[in-house]
């Protein structure tokens, strides 16, 4: 049963003073926002299980968790980081196409420093993160201060950034060794992959900063109506810059993880087309590209849906040429099921049927 319509008792609509607001528990759409993505995720996972019964096997190999389910989280960690940064940018009514290039740049900085210097890992990581933050700063300034439209502003770095990364690595995959970095890529802490822990920490930290301070509100206000926010005393430009900086930072962390994973910086291919998956995840998680609202938790679920889908396709043994079609179809279905308009239509349809049935 859909209960989209009116769940309150018919006490009028609070037209007279003092009546509204007290009864704040009326179920609004937003409180059920999580339903669609979670159902979609469960469905994809169930289908995976049907395709490949081994899918649900999780066992302990060499003292760490091992299995397809673990793989989804493991592989999804870097995409989730990028997507969460993307969600915040989208919250300000922006978009960041440069994340893939930022991943390449931070990975390249890290690999080259490891290869050519004997700096301590902490400094190398800081340098890689710094590179990502600089990239974000550049995007933010273009968008907020030069008023360049976000798609184009970040397209610039998307194109040039990969060139910069290639320049740093000389167009070769720079391989490196070192226990510390290998652990980041494929090490475990009490059976849980380090990269998952890192991603979880960063995402939880961002969630706290966004939701436990007023920053999240500011981001959403700026995305909803930048002019009005400015007039309400919010530094709209600053908030925009900050959003891109956060996105740059998240991409840099992802870049570090990705490079550590293959023990090399692949400037040519690292993070290629990842921006599309990240944006997809944000939208599958229920946010609007028109800004004004963002959901970090649902974005992560969106990432897991996409990752589970990819893993499912690989497990199914379906020839590679079908991958894109399946992906397109599933994304389409998930979006349609989630779209409020479509739900509304289905709701109407059900009500009509029930009415006729009675």
């Amino acid at each position, binding site marked *: 049963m859909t209960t989209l319509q009116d769940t309150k008792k018919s006490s009028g609509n609070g037209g007279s003073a003092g009546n509204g607001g007290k009864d704040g528990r009326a179920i609004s759409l937003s409180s059920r926002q999580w339903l669609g993505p979670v159902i979609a995720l469960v469905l994809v996972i169930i289908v995976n299980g049907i395709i490949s019964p*081994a899918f649900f096997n999780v066992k302990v190999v060499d003292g760490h968790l091992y299995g397809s389910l673990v793989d989804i989280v493991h592989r999804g960690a870097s995409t989730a980081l990028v997507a969460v940064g993307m969600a915040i940018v989208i919250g300000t009514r922006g978009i960041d196409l440069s994340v893939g290039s930022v991943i390449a740049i931070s990975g390249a900085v890290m690999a080259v420093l490891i290869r050519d210097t004997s700096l301590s890992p902490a400094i190398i990581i800081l340098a890689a993160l710094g590179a990502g933050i600089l990239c974000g700063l550049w995007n933010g300034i273009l968008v907020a201060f030069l008023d360049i439209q976000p798609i184009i502003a970040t397209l610039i770095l998307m194109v040039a950034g990969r060139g910069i990364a290639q320049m740093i690595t000389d167009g070769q995959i720079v391989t490196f060794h070192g226990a510390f970095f290998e652990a980041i890529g494929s090490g475990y802490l009490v059976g849980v992959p380090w990269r998952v822990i890192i991603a979880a920490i960063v995402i939880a930290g961002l969630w706290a900063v966004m939701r436990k301070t007023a920053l999240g509100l500011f981001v959403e206000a700026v995305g909803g109506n930048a002019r009005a926010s400015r007039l309400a005393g919010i530094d709209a430009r600053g908030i925009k810059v900050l959003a891109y900086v956060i996105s740059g930072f998240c991409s840099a962390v992802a870049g570090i993880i990705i490079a550590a994973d293959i023990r090399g910086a692949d400037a040519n291919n690292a993070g290629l087309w990842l921006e599309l998956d990240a944006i997809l995840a944000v939208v599958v998680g229920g946010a609007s590209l028109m800004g004004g609202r963002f959901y970090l938790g649902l974005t992560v679920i969106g990432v897991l849906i996409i990752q589970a889908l990819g893993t499912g396709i690989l497990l199914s*043994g379906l020839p*590679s040429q079908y991958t894109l079609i399946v992906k397109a179809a599933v994304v389409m279905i998930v979006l349609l099921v989630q779209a409020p308009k479509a739900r509304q239509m289905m709701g109407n349809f059900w009500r009509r049927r029930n009415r006729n049935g009675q």
Partner: protein
Amino acid sequence: EMIIGFSQIGSESGWRTSETASIKAEAEKRGIDLKFSDAQQKQENQIKAVRSFIAQGVDGILLAPVVETGWDQVLKEAKDAGIPVVLVDRGVAADKSLYLTKVASDFVQEGALAASWLAAKTNGVCDLVELQGTVGSSAANDRKAGFQSIVDNFPNMKILRSQSGDFTRSGGKEVMESFLKAENGGKNICAVYAHNDDMALGAVQAIKEAGLEPGKDILIVSIDGVPDIFKAMADGDTNASIELNPHLGAPAFDAIKASMDGKDVPKWIKANGPLYLPDTAAEEYKKRSGS
């Protein structure tokens, strides 16, 4: 001084960057003014570049075509302008009179060579998995076809699974991880055939992380001969790699020179690389990483 235009596909892999570097170095050595254009993986950009070379009246053009078809028109224009075109590292499906020569190896043959080696190594009994290159790319198509043509002759050789790892290291690793899971933790898999070395290197890590020993529990054969694969072979992680020769500058320039001198040039200057095995790997690695 000779002016030669070089339209390169892009810089999508370390191998291609080496090829570019090698051709540039060769040009410098010979005092050739090389006009380089990177097409960012797009045929239309390559056509633009070739036309720009024609407009500038260069003495010759090197073209590393991103795809095999669609060159007739622009090659005709070059021919009309009297500019010889040398295809490097890949061929085109155009009339042979439209270009001077092709300096390239044969992808199909590479695939066949890999399969032959594997068949010999396993006495024709092997269930293997394949890491394909980018779907639709000619290198992936041909390396797959060549390999398959040999496997078809061995009833006890079977390709269990074949997925695209997009020619990248992380792609190879991710796909291999799922193969291992789908094939009983890797116990069903006798060998991996990777369309390039980078994917093989990714697979090595996936196999290690699954608790198996690459090169022993699962044999690995790949193509390209990038420096890192020699290290891996020397360490015993992979078993064979077929080199794709990146040093195509010298034969290409020679061909242009020869045709200017009015000499005949063969239509296909084969540049196939050999199959390398672990025994020479350490030495080869030293050679390649040293230079």
